[in-house]
């Protein structure tokens, strides 16, 4: 029951992030919204692991955290140099 409520809250956060991802208006907003969606996914995976008692899926969390950071840095550098590309 508690896991269902918690995952529901994460789904609310992910849907809100997805709406902002579609709406924009700037590219940086979309990147930040994607971060929120990723962290909601991480939280839902952690709740699922706590509910089932199975630690296998927790390794996904580490990968998501590092991949998400790489994506954010790459996108922000792209945004910064969009106007004065050689």
């Amino acid at each position, binding site marked *: 029951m508690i896991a269902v409520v918690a*995952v529901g809250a994460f789904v609310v956060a992910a849907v809100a*992030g997805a*709406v902002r991802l579609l709406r924009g208006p700037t590219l940086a907003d979309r990147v*930040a919204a994607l*971060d*929120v969606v990723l962290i*909601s996914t991480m939280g839902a995976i*952690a709740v699922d692991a706590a509910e089932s008692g199975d630690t296998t899926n927790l390794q996904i969390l580490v990968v998501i955290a590092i991949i998400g*950071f790489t994506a954010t*840095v790459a996108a922000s550098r792209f945004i910064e140099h969009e106007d004065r590309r050689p």
Partner: protein
Amino acid sequence: MSVVASVFILAGALLAALAGIGVLRFDTAYARFHAAGKASPVAFLLVAIGAAVELGWAGAALLAVASTALVLTLPVGVHLLFRAVHRTTTSDHLRVDDLAGPEQPSLDDQG
């Protein structure tokens, strides 16, 4: 699920929902980044503490690695987003702007 784990997980999930609503509802890019970059890592930390209480040492180790990676990297990423927005748009709505003034050297310009 134990009471302590339930309280931490529910608090974290509620905070994550608030972060999502903040990202959706705030009206400037800076305010949205605050919701995305401050509330969501704390939300994940709370959920990770709750899950670690429930799972014991094997799960706690992995959750600690994931939390550390998130807490170390997410502020850096969001700061880079802030800087990118500040450099590419006008910031007339800001009352205090510490980044205004001469252009800071970019990482690409050094060396």
